[in-house]
């Protein structure tokens, strides 16, 4: 007779297979990583440039990324977009603090022709003023819309606080849209794109002569000196509230400067952070959403940078629940510092994290991203074996001590908006 009250036995994960992409050196600082074994016709190519927001005054980095196909002497932007669409390409150019990444998604037999379109734009783009004006107008409208969102307001202010006195704190303001010059964009492109390529990542079953062409033609864009990034961040904890009349919800951001994968506590901390707020059954979700119903969702994340990282706890809650929410977050953190995690909960988190690792290594795209996630910090896939080992062996005592060491409530900046 079927007894539904008994859970089926849980089987342990046998092994996780990690696969390295092929690595091709373009110069001593720049490599192309290629995951060839893809069992279908899809492909992706990503170009990483040292062209993040920290490299220039406000807006220049994001505008430049949006203008790569703005036109050359012989082809206007519409011609470029027609060519890309004729090849069935989807493309995306995004910027973060430290990188600009230009990505193309296409069928694998189109990848070479897409590269050639990109190559032509890279080598010859002239940034026509009319195109700059058009994108400025478009971005300005989007900027104004985004400032109506409490999530965006709180995120901006949070980053300004934790990165104070550094280039990482830079954010666009409305008046910046009137202060952009074409010359700045041209200079930025010359320095950080044409001479700023830091990495290429290819996923797809591509002909080797196509790959050879891509390798050879990309070399001239490679960065010549290893890019430098700030190492010192002050992290003075500050509390700030931004009033937004007529908002129905308040956005809350709580966090601090922390570290990245190169820190000895990173792996253990990410286990602690999972328990706190990084999965659906986390303590913050259980308390703030599933017990109190204050929010649709709350999470706690570690975001990494080249030389550091930061912790951020983020949620949007009903306006009346704002102060209670902050108080409950504090209580959950204090609980982690004073009480040992029970074996049942820790056991669940161990299994959940191992399942996540298995999933993150599933398929060529996921596996490539997993690899990039460590190679960016000069680590190998051995990192994940260490991670698995730590997940299996970490003790409740270690977790408590780590909470005491890194989650001191007085060290947090707290921003609310709404």
């Amino acid at each position, binding site marked *: 007779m*079927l007894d*539904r*009250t008994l*859970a*089926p036995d*849980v*089987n342990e*994960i*046998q092994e996780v*297979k990690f696969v390295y992409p092929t690595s091709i050196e373009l110069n001593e600082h720049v490599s192309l990583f290629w995951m060839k074994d893809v069992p*279908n*016709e*899809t492909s992706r190519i990503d170009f990483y440039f040292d062209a993040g927001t920290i490299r220039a005054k406000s807006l220049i980095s994001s505008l430049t990324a949006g203008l790569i196909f703005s036109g050359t002497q012989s082809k206007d*932007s*519409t011609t470029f*977009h027609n060519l890309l*669409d*004729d090849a*069935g390409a*989807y493309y995306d150019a995004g910027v973060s603090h430290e990188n600009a990444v230009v990505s193309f*998604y*296409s069928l694998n037999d*189109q990848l070479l022709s897409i590269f050639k379109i990109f190559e032509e734009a890279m080598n010859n783009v002239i940034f026509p003023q009319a195109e700059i004006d*058009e994108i400025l*107008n*478009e971005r*300005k*409208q989007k900027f*104004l*819309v985004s400032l*109506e*969102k409490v999530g965006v307001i709180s995120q901006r202010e949070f980053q300004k606080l934790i990165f104070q006195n550094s280039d990482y704190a830079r954010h666009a303001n409305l008046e910046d849209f009137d202060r952009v010059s074409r010359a700045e964009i041209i200079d930025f492109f010359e320095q950080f794109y044409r001479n700023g390529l830091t990495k290429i990542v290819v996923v797809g079953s591509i002909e080797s002569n196509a790959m050879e062409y891509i390798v050879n033609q990309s070399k001239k864009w490679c960065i010549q000196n290893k890019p430098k990034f700030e190492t010192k961040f002050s992290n003075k904890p500050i509390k700030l509230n931004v009033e937004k009349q007529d*908002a*129905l*919800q308040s956005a809350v951001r709580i966090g601090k400067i922390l570290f990245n994968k190169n820190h000895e506590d990173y792996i253990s901390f990410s286990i602690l952070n999972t328990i706190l707020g990084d*999965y*659906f*059954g986390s303590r913050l979700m259980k308390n703030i*959403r*599933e017990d*109190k*119903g*204050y929010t*649709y969702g709350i999470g706690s994340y570690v975001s990494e940078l080249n030389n550091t990282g930061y912790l951020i706890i983020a949620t*949007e*809650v*009903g306006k009346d629940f704002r102060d209670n929410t902050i108080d409950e977050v504090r209580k959950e953190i204090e609980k982690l510092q004073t009480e040992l995690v029970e074996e049942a909960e820790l056991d*669940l*988190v161990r*299994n*959940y994290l*191992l*399942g*996540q690792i*298995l*999933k993150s*290594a*599933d*398929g060529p*795209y996921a596996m490539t991203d997993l690899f990039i996630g460590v190679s960016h910090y000069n680590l190998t896939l051995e990192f994940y074996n260490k991670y698995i080992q730590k997940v299996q062996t970490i003790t409740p005592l270690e977790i408590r001590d780590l909470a005491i060491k890194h989650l001191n409530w007085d060290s947090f900046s707290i921003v609310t908006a709404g």
Partner: protein
Amino acid sequence: MIQFERFELENGLKVLFHKDTTTPMAVVNVLYDVGARDESEEQTGFAHLFEHLMFGGSVNIPDFDSALQRAGGENNAFTSNDITNYYDVVPANNLDTALWLESDRMLSLAFTEKSLEVQRQVVVEEFKQRYLNQPYGDVWLLLRPLAYKVHPYKWATIGKEISHIENATMEDVRSFFKRFYCPSNAILCVAGNFDLDFVKQRVSYWFESIPSAKKPPRILPSEPIQNEFRELQVERSVPSDAFYYAFKMGERKSEMYYVADLLSDALGREKSSRLYLTLKKEKQLVSEITCYILGSLDEGLLVITGKLNEGVDFEKLDNELWTCLKQITNTEIDDSELDRLKIKVRTAKEFQEQGILNRAMNLCYFELLGDANGVNEEKYIYQAITSKMLRDTAKHILRKENCSLLKIKSKRDA
């Protein structure tokens, strides 16, 4: 090509199996043939509220999520106007845990008063976060009742108003479950590196003892043919004026659906599309413009939406937009433009087939449409579309008396 096998249990549960030898993961996807269109107009938002409650515990399992997490898995769900879809992703050797959980929740639910109270509150916060506390967030709460007068598509999945959620009682929720959550109203897909016999055996083990029930009949009021232009203008404190032209189009199973999808790409999907080139680049009337279709099972909508540049009024845009639309209804597009649209669709479809979760969901969805193999046939339907079909469909859809227009006027320039 997505390979699959199909079998059915005696209680009426339809089961699909997709074998993938390359993955260490398994997916269990359960699609219930119930969405917001099945709600009564006095109790909207139920299908979605219900989806939240389905995680509050089932008859033999007090905590759904943690049982799955302990097995290294995770799960989630979504509700649309047409369907409710639950999915679990687990390491393949823990497939049984996912089947155990999904079968128990099909058998009977058992959430508490407290869980109902909390999820009502969570959904109210979701309502605020997504629809009320965002610029332009309430557009679909306005546009749906403008475009649909009778059909239940006139309310959004989240519900017509917050009070419907706030007033939901235990009894309401129980009767909703009884009516819609039974084997004959569900499609299950198992995907992973298994053999068919094994999957049959495990699925039967967990699901065959669930009592059968008649599939609930669906009698929806059909939307009368629209034959007048509808227009609504509201003021909101948003930065720029926005417009939403919604045209009625064919239901999901009709050929017109696919043609309209390609037509929407031609009009406003990419930077090579017609509305983008004419209204944004050339005439500089808008800061953004796109065209897309809703993809609903019953009569759907093709939507053209964008934001006006400063100093441009709705009337100017309206004139130029209709001129553009006339062009595509009067002249067939040439082969190079058609080829461009088709290769984009082909690329998109190839990427959508990545990963077993996508494949399992798609198989269930196409089985609901009539045949899971439709997922493999769809690309041929797109590739067979001709310029003439596009023009005919454009003529049929892009008419003023088939259009509902919502204008959001920025309060700042009032």
